[in-house]
Each structure stands twice: as structure tokens, then as C-alpha cells.
């Protein structure tokens, strides 16, 4: 009997010690509503070392898992940009020393690695990511630790953060131009097909609102999880709905299954063309089927004729492990490192607050392969030209439509009266 009571005592004692320690600590921790609560980031002092002749930057992409096939390219082009900048003398005369981390296509891993890069490796800024889910995992961590994250892929908009710079398109630079193109083509009915996650769902919510304004009828909307590639039953619904056009927000390898089902069902680009926002020069040859005649909406195409594009294509083709073709996400990643360089040089410092102040002080520009882009210091997005390309037999894109000027980034669609103000308010409230 006595041994049982001893055991019980041991159990109770451990519980009591742990609870007491936790409670004592709780006494000094901030609570909801405290004044200090707002200044949570002040707790994390920056540990970035700027004394030497190098500066540490973090590169974070999925090198393993399902997204590796896309993200390795972004990672590789970041390495190329770093090599180029180092060959040119570095940033503020400091050579870039990068720490590469693997996000492993797992969103909590993205959060963990972000924290590691900022607190253990003490990097001045982090570059990378691809899926919106990975960005949404990184966002609270960079905000908490007052770090910087440069995100290089087109996304669904409706977001801004003092700690994130977005060098890919927001909705009014990719989705809305695509809809304008469809309206100009005289499209009357549209079918929405997407992967089941945050980007396609949000993009389609916006497409539906704008379609109502343009008088385009949405005749169907289907989703399949990111990791599934059987589209047979969904494509059967497309055949039955007979749309003029298909708006494709499918991401990654699921596109292969979609394209297969599309041709198996007897659909053709001549009668039911697809406009995609995730199929670029890299993906087109990997579809396992001829995709000639279908469309894509991007800001950058390899076929663009700008002063800086030939050099970019040439450097990339010569770079080790290069895929040989350039595409929009890799160009945006390339921009992100140069944009950071321009920001730091304008600020004269690697300090996050100084960099953000420099972004607001005067317009930061960069002669990108897509043209001269300008950073909006308030919402941390960049201006971009809108382009629609049509896939040709070489799996390159013939430009069939271009916006008349560079489109200013408008992540919350404030300049579009068809986007309901109360939704915008709810979203900004929820973000703040």
C-alpha cells in the first residue's frame, strides 16, 4: 500500500512542479489586451551580423516532396541571381552567403525553417516559397520575429504584410487580365476547374464576381485535391456544360491528369480552349500530351522581347542544373533578389525597418526581364505587364494579348467597384 501512495506522491509532485513553473512564468508573460501585446515583435532583437564582408540570406523552398519539381527551379534561379550579384560586388559591398533550407512540401516545416533561418542562422532576409499554403505558414513567423520574406509566385491577393514582399502577380495582374481577354474574345460561358486549396478557391471567388460584371456565365465549378490527378468525372461535367472556355487554376502535376481527361473526352483547343494560370514554359512539355492552342495568363513569357530578357535566358541556359527554359515564377524569383539589393542599397542598411522605410521613401525600380518593374512601398507588391500567351508547337507561347500599360498592384482590389466593399473590410479586419 505504501508503495502505491509513494507512486501517487511522485505523480502528483511532478505535476505540481511543472504546473507551478508554468504558472510562475505565466505571471510574467503578456496577456491579451496588454499594451506590450501589440509590441510582440520588439521581444525579438535582430541577430543579423553585418560586421563582416558577407551577408547571410536564407533560401527556403521544397527540395523534397510533391512541390519539389516546381520549387527546385525557383531555388536554382535564386542561386543564379546570388552568383550574379556576388560577381558584381555583392550588396553594399558584402558578398551574399546563402543558407538553403528544405520546406519538404510540408507547411509546418516551412514555419519551423523560417524560425530557424531568422533565429539560428540570423539571415537578413528569406527568399522562396511557392504555394500559398507555404506563404501562409511563413507569414506569422516573419511577423512575430520582424523578419523579411520575398515571395516569388503569382497568388490570390487579398493579403499584405509589412514583413513580406510579393514579386509575383496579385489577382489584378493575372486573373483580371485573363478575364478581360476572355471578354474581348466574346466568351459567353466559362467553366472553372481548380485544385482544392486556397489559391484556386479564392481566385474563382473573384472570377465569379468579375464574370457577373462582364456578363460571362459560369456554367460549372469543379475542384480536385492537389495530390489527386483523376479528372475523368469532372471533365464529363465540362463536356455536358459545353462552355466556350475553361478557366484552369489547377496546380502542379494534377494538370497532367486534367489534360489527359480533357483529350480523352474529345475536347479540343479549337472548340473548348483552356486558359491556365499555372502552366508555363516548364510545365507545357511535361503534360504528356500536345497542349498546342491552349492559353496561359502570365506577366513574363520567354518569348517576350525586352532589352534584358535575352541575357536572362542566356544566363539561365548556361547555369548548372538548368531546365533550359525560363518561366514566370523563376523570373519573379530572380526579380526578388535584385529588388532586395535595390532596397538595401536605397536604405544603406540591412535593417528590416530601414528597408521598409526605404520602400516607402521613393519608388524602387528594377529592369526585369519582363520590363521595368516598380515597387509599391505601401502594399509591397510590384507593377507588372499583363500578357496572354498561346502555346505553339515548340511549347513556347505566342503573345496574343498584352495590357496597354504596366498594371499597378492592387491586392485588395480597391480600384474595382464590382468587388464588394464589405468583403474587403471583413478581409482587412481579419488580417489586422
Amino acid at each position, binding site marked *: 500500500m505504501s*508503495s502505491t501512495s509513494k*507512486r501517487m506522491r*511522485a*505523480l502528483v509532485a*511532478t*505535476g505540481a*512542479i*511543472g504546473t507551478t513553473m*508554468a504558472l510562475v*512564468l*505565466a505571471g*510574467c*508573460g*503578456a*496577456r*491579451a489586451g*496588454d499594451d*506590450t*501585446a501589440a509590441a*510582440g515583435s520588439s*521581444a525579438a532583437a535582430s541577430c543579423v551580423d553585418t560586421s563582416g564582408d558577407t551577408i547571410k540570406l536564407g533560401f527556403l523552398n521544397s*527540395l*523534397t516532396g510533391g512541390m519539389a519539381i516546381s520549387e527546385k527551379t525557383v531555388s536554382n534561379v535564386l542561386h543564379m541571381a546570388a552568383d550574379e550579384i556576388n560577381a558584381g560586388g555583392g550588396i553594399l559591398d558584402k558578398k551574399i552567403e546563402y543558407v538553403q*533550407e*528544405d520546406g*519538404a512540401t510540408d*507547411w*509546418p*516545416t516551412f*514555419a*519551423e*525553417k523560417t*524560425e*530557424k533561418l531568422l*533565429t*539560428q542562422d540570423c539571415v537578413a532576409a528569406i527568399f522562396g516559397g511557392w504555394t*500559398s*499554403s507555404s506563404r*501562409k*505558414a511563413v*507569414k*506569422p*513567423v516573419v511577423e*512575430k520575429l520582424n523578419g523579411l520574406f520575398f515571395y516569388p509566385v503569382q497568388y490570390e491577393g*487579398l493579403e499584405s504584410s509589412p514583413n513580406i514582399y510579393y514579386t509575383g502577380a496579385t489577382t489584378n495582374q493575372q486573373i483580371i487580365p485573363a478575364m478581360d481577354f476572355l471578354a474581348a474574345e466574346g466568351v459567353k460561358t466559362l467553366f472553372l476547374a481548380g485544385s*482544392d*486549396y*486556397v489559391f484556386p*478557391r*479564392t481566385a474563382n*471567388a473573384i472570377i465569379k464576381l468579375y464574370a457577373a460584371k462582364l456578363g460571362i456565365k459560369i456554367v460549372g465549378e469543379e475542384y480536385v*485535391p*492537389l495530390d489527386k490527378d483523376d479528372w475523368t468525372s469532372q471533365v464529363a461535367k465540362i463536356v455536358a456544360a459545353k462552355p466556350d472556355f475553361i478557366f484552369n487554376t489547377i496546380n502542379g502535376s494534377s494538370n497532367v491528369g486534367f489534360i489527359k481527361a480533357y483529350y480523352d473526352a474529345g475536347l479540343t483547343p479549337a472548340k473548348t480552349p483552356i486558359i491556365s494560370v499555372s502552366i508555363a514554359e516548364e510545365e507545357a512539355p511535361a503534360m504528356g500530351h500536345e497542349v498546342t492552342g491552349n492559353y496561359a495568363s502570365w506577366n513574363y513569357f520567354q518569348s517576350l522581347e525586352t532589352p534584358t530578357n535575352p541575357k536572362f535566358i542566356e544566363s539561365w541556359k548556361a547555369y548548372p542544373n538548368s531546365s533550359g527554359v525560363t518561366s514566370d515564377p523563376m523570373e519573379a524569383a530572380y526579380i526578388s533578389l535584385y529588388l532586395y539589393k535595390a532596397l538595401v542599397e536605397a536604405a544603406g542598411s540591412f535593417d528590416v525597418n530601414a528597408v521598409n522605410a526605404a520602400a516607402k521613401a521613393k519608388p524602387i525600380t528594377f529592369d526585369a526581364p519582363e520590363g521595368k518593374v516598380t515597387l509599391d512601398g505601401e502594399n509591397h507588391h510590384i507593377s507588372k505587364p499583363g500578357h496572354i500567351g498561346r502555346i505553339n508547337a515548340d511549347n513556347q507561347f505566342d503573345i496574343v494579348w498584352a495590357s496597354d500599360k504596366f498594371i499597378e498592384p492592387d491586392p485588395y482590389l480597391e480600384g474595382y467597384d464590382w468587388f*464588394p466593399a*464589405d*468583403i474587403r473590410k*471583413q*478581409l482587412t479586419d*481579419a*488580417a489586422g
Partner: protein
Amino acid sequence: MTKKPWISLSGIGVFAVLLLAVAPLVLSDHWLNNLGKYCCWAIAAVGIGLAWGRGGMLVMGQGVFFALGAYSMAMHLTLETAGDRVPGFMVLYDPLAPLPMFWEPFRSTGFTLLAIVLLPVVVAGALGYALFKRRVKGAYFAILTQALAVALATLISSTIRETGGDTGLSDFKYFFGFVLNDPANRLMVYLIAATLLIVCLLAVWQFYRSRFGELLVATRDAEERVRFLGYDPANVKLVAFVVSALMASIGGAMFVPIVGIITPAEIGAAASILMIAGVALGGRASLFGPALGAMAVGWGQSSLGSTWPDGWTYILGLLFVVVILFLPNGLSSLPARLMRRQRPGPVEPPAPAIAPAELEEVKS
């Protein structure tokens, strides 16, 4: 199994001092937070050790119970952050729809804590009752639990507005009124997780020493004989299964404030198997094996996965094969084996992964 109880108990004591006192002093914030995450997996692993190591039930879907705790906690923290408003991610997909009904009760702290404890007990209780009374066991039981984990992960992925889908739930600002960004509060959350791990270890230590523990091992090794002796093996297994589910739920609940995000990938088939892998590596039937194995796998993922992203999964796989081949009782049996080699004595037979009686049934 343990002949000298005080050795195990003082082992738990040393472990407690290391986790609660030494680790916070020597580890950086980042590694302490990682250690907290490993503690959550270890809590679930202790439960797997009980159900699988001692009970012979290969629970391949502990992600289901991990999810019950994790999503209960995550829903509460999301609502706490959102206040009176509908959470931001829901507004994105359908701006005008209200909060889903099943979210409402999770506003309450009491309901959330109760749900973390009661949901796994009810679900595992009903499931276990239905399965064990029908004498479903062995490979059938393993496949069934695994299928449940896959089904739940798919369900969560496809209900994006209700659960956050593949992106998961994240961006929690508060933990029951405490600001999560505050380092002192983060230390508090870590200490709660570490304490819960110690409490779970003490609980199974007590279980293993009790008559119930003996009965559980007897059921694992010779279920029919236990039945002939007048006990109902179904009840014995049910208790072990429910306790292991409860531990997985507690681990999941603490995972959320520590890691700051929960997604279906953390609870699906792969995650559930990784939990089993840690337990097998450490030694499924031992007291410390499951916890230490789970923590080692977690550490490998953070550390080796960082320096060698492509290689780490191969290392884990290789280690797994080597351990199963040469150390069927896990790494924790290594010291005893080495000692025995020097001083020959009675050799303990390895605990079978699936009880011999069940194997025969599978064969027939």
C-alpha cells in the same frame, strides 16, 4: 517486465529534470520550441507503446486522435484570435456565410479542454468496442485504423471553408488569453507539454506495474488463454486503445500552440506511420523507448533534414530496417543486450509485432 521499479522511476525523474530544468537553460528558443514539438509526438508515442508494444494492437491511425486534439485546440485558438469576427480564411472562400455550427462551442475554454479529453475517448471507445467485441485484430485492425487516418485527412483537405483544408489552421495570436509571441509564454507552453509527457510516462509506468498491465501483455501473447481464464480480452484491449487515443489527442492539442499550425499532412497516413516508426526504433514494449524514439525521429527530421534533405528519409528507412532485423525490441534494448553478451543469463524473447495467435488467424 521491469524487476526493479525504482530504476524506472528514477529514470523518469532524470528525464523530468532534463526536460523541465536543463533544457530551458541550455537550449536556444528555436531548439526549445522544437523540443516542445518532439514532446508532443512523444506523448502520442507513449500511447502507441501502450497499445502496440504492450497490447499488440498495431495502431496505424493515431493521426485520427492526434487530429481530434489538435483541431479542437486550433479551432479554439483561431476563434480567440478572430474575436467576434468570422475567421479570415472563411471570409476568403464564402464571404457572407456564417461560422459553421460545429465551431461555435469551441469559443468556450471549458468545452475545448473537455473536447480534447472526451472526443478521443468517445471515438476510440465506440470504435474499439465495435472492433474488439467482434474480435477484429492483427492486420485487419491495422489496415482499418490506417484507412481512418487517410479518410479523415481527405475529409479535412476537402472541407476547405470549414477546416482550412490543405492549408490548415494557423496564425494563432493567443493561447487561453496569453500572447503567444511572448517568449515567457512560449516557455510556459513548452513546460506544459514537457510536464504532460512526464505525466503520461508516469501513467504508463503505473499501468505496466499493475495487474492490468500483466493482463494486457497476457492478452497480447495469448488472447485465447486469457479468455479461458475468465477475462474478456476485448475489455482489456479497449482500455489500452482508449488511453492511447487520449494521449495522441493531448499530444495533438499541445502541438498546435507550439508549432503554430496544423494541417491534414500532420495527421494523415504518412504522419501516422512516422509515429509508429519512432516507437519501433525506440523499442515499442519498453517504458522510455517510444518517447525517445519519437523524439529522435523528430530531431532527425529537423536536423538531418536540414543538412541533407534528400538523404534523411533514406537514413530513417535504413535505420528502421536495421533495427527491425537486428534489434527487434528497439534501440532501448541495446544496453541490456550488450550486458547480456558479457554475462550470459536468461534471454527475453522479443515482443512480437503481431501476437502469434493473431498471426495464425491471419494465415487461416
